């Protein structure tokens, strides 16, 4: 299912949950795993002075430092590395999202696993959110393969996933997300919950009457039937649901109700301004608040 998994890490405990999932997956699917760490962005064009991704401080790197970091990563994940068939540690300097995307493209990666900010009270959380949050945003939007974001402890592992929530907005990207969710559900034998939230927030001031809402909901349910269910040949372990409200809130509520242990969505905001896109997108909000991992899938290439 996944030949090559790219696990991007800051090498701090914040990424432990993601590490857990990434290594478990590699073990289960006998994948090659790359442990990938970008130290920081270069402060000057080519100098060895970098702004550390974690601390925000300027530091110097050279071959000794690189070896030291790689050794540290090896020690951090020592027990997990033993369990997987092949693990490669890769560290470099650059703009994190650029390097993650470049590496994934070059090495034909099948799945990216990332950590995400989970709790504000953690030391350095604000900075972490700014750097890792925007990296996650860019990577999730642009990667050709599915991106699994893990922000909280995942008590079940991927092959125990029993409830996969697929949230759709009927976009082209959502179709890729569906293909991934369906493939995974079939592979693991889990229940697939096909969900759409009727967006009442973006209607430009007009309010729908209850009757109209109900009509729209019926329409959306039909659409799920024709667009997705028709593609699931003979697979009947699914359920369809459409709710109305603010999409990210509804997805979260639904996932909670159904004990979702994986949410699969697409993430295709066109917003170019990072600051606006960061807080605005549904997927970002879901990632921030969901109690389970979230997979962002936007392209058909790897599903």
């Amino acid at each position, binding site marked *: 299912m996944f030949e090559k998994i790219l696990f991007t890490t800051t090498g701090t405990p914040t990424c432990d949950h993601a590490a857990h999932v990434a290594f478990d997956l590699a073990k289960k699917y006998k994948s090659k795993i790359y442990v990938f760490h970008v130290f920081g*962005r*270069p*402060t*000057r*064009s*080519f*100098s*060895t*002075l970098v*702004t550390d991704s974690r601390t925000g401080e300027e530091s*110097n*790197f*050279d*071959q000794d430092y690189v070896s030291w970091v790689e050794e540290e990563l090896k020690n951090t994940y020592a027990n997990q590395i033993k369990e997987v068939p092949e693990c490669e540690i890769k560290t470099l300097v*650059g*703009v994190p999202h*650029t390097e993650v995307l*470049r590496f994934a*493209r*070059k090495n034909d990666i099948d799945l990216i696993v990332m950590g995400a900010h989970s709790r504000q009270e953690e030391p350095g959380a604000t900075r972490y959110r700014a750097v890792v949050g925007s990296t996650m945003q860019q990577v999730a939007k*642009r990667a050709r393969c599915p991106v699994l974001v893990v922000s909280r402890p995942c008590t079940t592992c991927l092959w125990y996933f029993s409830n996969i929530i697929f949230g759709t907005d009927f*976009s*082209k990207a959502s179709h890729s997300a569906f293909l991934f969710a369906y493939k995974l559900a079939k592979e693991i034998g889990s229940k697939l919950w096909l969900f759409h939230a009727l967006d009442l927030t973006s209607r430009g001031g007009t309010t729908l009457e209850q009757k109209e809402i109900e009509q729209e909901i019926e329409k959306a349910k039909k659409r799920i039937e024709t667009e997705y269910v028709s593609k699931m040949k003979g697979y009947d372990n699914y359920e369809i649901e459409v709710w109305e409200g603010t999409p990210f809130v509804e997805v979260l509520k639904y996932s909670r109700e159904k004990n979702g242990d994986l949410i699969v969505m697409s993430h295709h905001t*066109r917003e*170019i*301004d990072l*600051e606006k896109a960061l807080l605005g997108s549904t997927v970002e909000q879901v990632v921030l608040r969901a109690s389970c991992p979230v997979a962002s899938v936007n392209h058909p290439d790897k599903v």
Partner: protein
Amino acid sequence: MAEGKLCNRNMINTEEELRTLLADTSGKQYYSEMMDLDVDRDKLKATLDKTLKSRLKTWLEICAHCGLCADSCFIYLANNKDPKQVPSYKIQSTLGQIVKKKGNVDNAFMRMTMDTAWAKCTCCNRCGMYCPFGIDMGVMFGYLRGLCFSQGFVPWEMKIGSGMHRVYRAQMDISTEDWVDTCEWMAEEYEEDYVGLKIPVDKKNANTIYTVNAREPKHYPEDIGEAAALFHIAGEDWTVPSEGWEETSLAMFAGDWEACKLQVQSVYDAIDRLKPKRMVVTECGHAYRATVIEGPYWTGQKSGKPPVESLHYVEWVAEALRTGKLKIDPAKKIKEPVTYQDSCNYIRNAGLGDTAREIMSYIAEDFREMTPCREHNFCCGGGGGLNGIGRYREERNIGLKIKRDQILATGAKLVISPCHNCWDAIRDLEEVYHIGIRWRFLKPILLSMVIIPDHLKPEE
């Protein structure tokens, strides 16, 4: 004559030499070797005899030491008007002395000269506008840097930078393959949002050849994707060369005259090979100066101009807006107060102040000028290579205060900065002084407000 293993008068011409120098973290060994580097006085005198021409000789002679240049220098202002920061003093006490002594100077003097040439002047050329005789200290410092470089007294990063140009024909280690691959990658990504978008590599006889700053393929590839999107929306017939795509010149900052020529020649060769009608260069100030303004002289173009008409990115944008090739959605114009960082290299030194204003009139509702502005604007604080030199970090940060105060006085929290160097300096300024501003290139701003024709929109 004593020379170091890393710090010497030799040029970097191989990848291996470059790696060895880079492996010396922060240039620790390099600078310690510099303490014992002998001055090759005969060579220095010979260089002076050959290259010091009448203009610079006259300037050094006629300077009346009147001090009118003092207040024009942002570094002087930022350092509490320290008399040692008066431009005429800075150049007379360095180049003036070398000339007077016919090159008979020692190691300590050369080290002092290096620190002055790179940490006390960004070659912004502002002083030249205020000197009653028109003496341009920036030009003289550019020349002085060349003398320092030829003697091996050059900041570590500058030696690396010029070496990069010699080895890769780019300021960073980017191979032709890396560059073409990055173009393909960006075409894949942006084609999704703009139907039919391509990044044509090595297309012959295109209307426009586009050249970039190596930082774009290296760290900010989106910039290339955004450029492609805007060219595509504007219906431009364009191409990028597989070789000769780098328009920047750290060699110019380093004073490595030979590498300056090598670098620019690679761009002109691309023009010769692909025969475009004109060239557009990305949002970079010194690159425009190197490739469009100085380059023709370095490479001996008789016309004093590049082989084809060459536009800075702001000229292309202004033209596209004026002719309606790019149309702005009025509802999406910038509403908040916004200011514009006039880059010394293409505003003061190439006269594109009006062009920048023209663009702002299309995209901003509340445009606030800095004071002073246009050709009188102050350097961002990191020009001339100063941004990139670890040894002068503190000096650079002191200089940033002037730009900080200028931006604060406008009341704008958004700074448009179509120059990589200014963009960096303003970013660093925010990181050092935390004044709560944002900084942007033109491309993302334009893409957020340009009207995309229906046939370029992807189907949903």
